[in-house]
C-alpha cells in the first residue's frame, strides 16, 4: 500500500472518530441536562386537565368570551392559545360580550372582584383557576 493511501486512510479514520465522538457527546450532554431538569424541577402541568371541567360544561361548538388576569395577555398571548387548545372546538373570543365567558385566572382568589367589576356571574368554578361565567341577569 502506498504512503499516500495509508495517509489518506488515517485521515479518514481520524475524521470519522472525531464525528462519532462529537455526535455521542451531542447526545450525552442534552441527556444529562434533561435528567437534571427532571430531577430538579416538577414536571409541568398538562394543558387539557386544566380546562376539562369547563369543556364538559359547555354545549357543542360554543363561542366563549375570554377574560383573564394573566397580565395584559390578550388573544395573542400564551395562556389564551393554551386555553383555546384545551377547549377546542369551542371558539374563544377576547372580551365579555358573549353568553358564556371563560375566566382564565393566575390568582383564583380574584374571581369575585373580577365578576363584580365586569358584571358577571359564575356558572361553574374550577379550583385550577378557570371559571365559566355569564353576564348578570341572563338566564
Amino acid at each position: 500500500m502506498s504512503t499516500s493511501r495509508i495517509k489518506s486512510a488515517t485521515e479518514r479514520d481520524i475524521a470519522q472518530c472525531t464525528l462519532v465522538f462529537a455526535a455521542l457527546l451531542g447526545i450525552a450532554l442534552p441527556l444529562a441536562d434533561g435528567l437534571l431538569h427532571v430531577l430538579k424541577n416538577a414536571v409541568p402541568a398538562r394543558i387539557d386537565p386544566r380546562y376539562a371541567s369547563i369543556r364538559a360544561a359547555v354545549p357543542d361548538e360554543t363561542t366563549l368570551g375570554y377574560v383573564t388576569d394573566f397580565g395584559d395577555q390578550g388573544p395573542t398571548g400564551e395562556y389564551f392559545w393554551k386555553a383555546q387548545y384545551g377547549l377546542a372546538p369551542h371558539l374563544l373570543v377576547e372580551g365579555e360580550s358573549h353568553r358564556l365567558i371563560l375566566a382564565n385566572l393566575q390568582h383564583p382568589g380574584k374571581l369575585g372582584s373580577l365578576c363584580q367589576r365586569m358584571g358577571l356571574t359564575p356558572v361553574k368554578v374550577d379550583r385550577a383557576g378557570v371559571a365559566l361565567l355569564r353576564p348578570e341577569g341572563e338566564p
Partner: protein
Amino acid sequence: MTGGMRLLASGLSLVTAGLSGPGLLAAALPPHPLAGVRRGLIIFLGPCIGLSLWGAVGVAAFFMHRATLPALMIGDALLAAMAAVGILLCRKARPPVEALLPPPAPSEHLSNPMLCVLLLATAGSAAVFLLHARLRPDGLWDAWSIWNLRARFIYFGSTHAFDAGFPHADYPPLYPTLIARIDWLVGAASTTVPLVCGAAAAALCAGTLFFGVAWLRGPRTGALAAIVLLGTQEFMNHAADQYADVPLACLFLGASVLVAIFLDGSEPRRIPVAALAGVLAGAATLLKNEGAFHFLGLFAGMIAAVAIAARPRKWGGVAAFIAGALPMLLLLGIFKIAIAPPSDMITGREAFAIAEDADSSPTESAMEKNAVQRDAGSVAPPSLWKRLSDLRRYWAILLAVLNRLIRIDRWNLFLAACVASFFFRPRTNQGRASRRALAIALLVTSAGYFAAYLATPHNLTWHINTSINRLILQMWGVMLLLASLRLVQKPGQNKPPGPV
C-alpha cells in the same frame, strides 16, 4: 362511530398506506447489490410516501366537507386501488436484472463497532426524546397554538379550523389533517398522537438518511451520516417539541434521496422513482409553506442536471417528478385560493405576540417577550422596497447564519463542518448529476428563506430568532446527504478524482 367501524377503517388505512408507500417504492426502486440496503430504504422511506398520500386523502375529504370515516374509507380504497395499479405497471416495466448485479465489495459491509455506535446513538436519542417529551408534555408554542390546535378543530369537524384569527392560519393543512386522521381512528383527540408523530418523523428521517446514503455511498458512510444527524441537538429537540419541521425535513430528505437515485442510474426504468420523489416534494409544499422553495429548487436542480449531463432519456423523469407532485400542488392551490387567509408575511399582521424557539431563553418571562414583540409590532413596517434595499437587513441575516454556525450547543460541530465542506473541491467525481441537482435545490431553498427574511414585515430580529434554527433543520438532512456524496467515493471504486 362504533369500534368495529374504526377497526375496519384502521385496517384499510394500513393497507392503503402500505400499498401506496412501501409497496410503490418496492416496485419502483431498481435493484441494489446490497439487498438489506434496498429493504431498509423501503422500510423507512416507504411510510413517508404512504403517510403523505394517506394524509392527502384526508385533506381532500376535509375540503369537500366529507371528513367522516365512511367517506375517508372510500378515499382510501380509491388510493389503494390506484397504488395497486401503479405497482403492477412498475413491475411489468422492470426487467429482471437482479441476477446480473455484481456482488458487494467487502468494504461495503457495516463494521461491528460502527453498528454498535449507531445503536448507542439511536438509544441515546430516544432517551433525549423521552426526557424532552416529559419536560414539555404538550410540546412547545407552535405545537399547541398551530399544529395540534388545528388538528383538534379538524378532528371535531369545526368550520373554524382555518379562521383568520388563528396564528399562521395560512399554513398548509397536511400535518394537522394527518394527526386528525389518526385521531379519528383512535376515537379521541389524543395528546399522544402528535408525540408519536414527532418520534416517527425523527425515526423515519434518520433511517432514510442511513439507507439513502448507504444506497449511494455504502453502509459505513450511511451509518456515519445517521450518527451525525442523531448527534445534532436541534434534531431531537424539535422532534419532541411536536413541530412540523422534522416531518418537513423528512420529506425534503426523502425527495432528495429519490432524485439522487434517479439521476445516478442510466436506465429508463428509474422514471417511477422520479415520480415518487415528486410525490414527496409535493407533499412538502402541502406540509409547510417552506416546502414550495424546496420543490422549486429540486425541480430546477433536476432540469439543470439533466440538461448539463445531456441525457435526453432523463427528461421523462423530470416530467414524472412534476406529475407525481401534481395532486399535492392541486390541493395546495385549492387551499390557498379558497380557504387560507392571506399570509402574515403579506399582511404584516402579528402572527404571535410571543413566539418561542429553542433560542429563546427559558428564564425570560412571557411578559417580557410579549412586551418586546408588542414594541416591535407597534411601529408600522417600512415599505417592501425599503425593506429590500436596506443593506443592514442583509447584514443582520448573514450575521444570524454565521452565529448558528458556531452554536455548538445547538448544532454540535456539524453545521460549521458541513457548510465548510461545501467550499472545498469534492473528493469524488461520481454522481455529478445528483450532486448538482441537490446543490441547486439547497441553494434555491436557502435563497428563498433569505428572501423571506428580507421581505418580512415583522421585526427582523424577532423573526430570525424564532425561526432560523428550524429553517436550517429543514435542510439539515439534505445537507448531510450532499456532504456524503461530495466527500466519499462509492465503495469498491476508489479511483482518484478526476476533474469535477
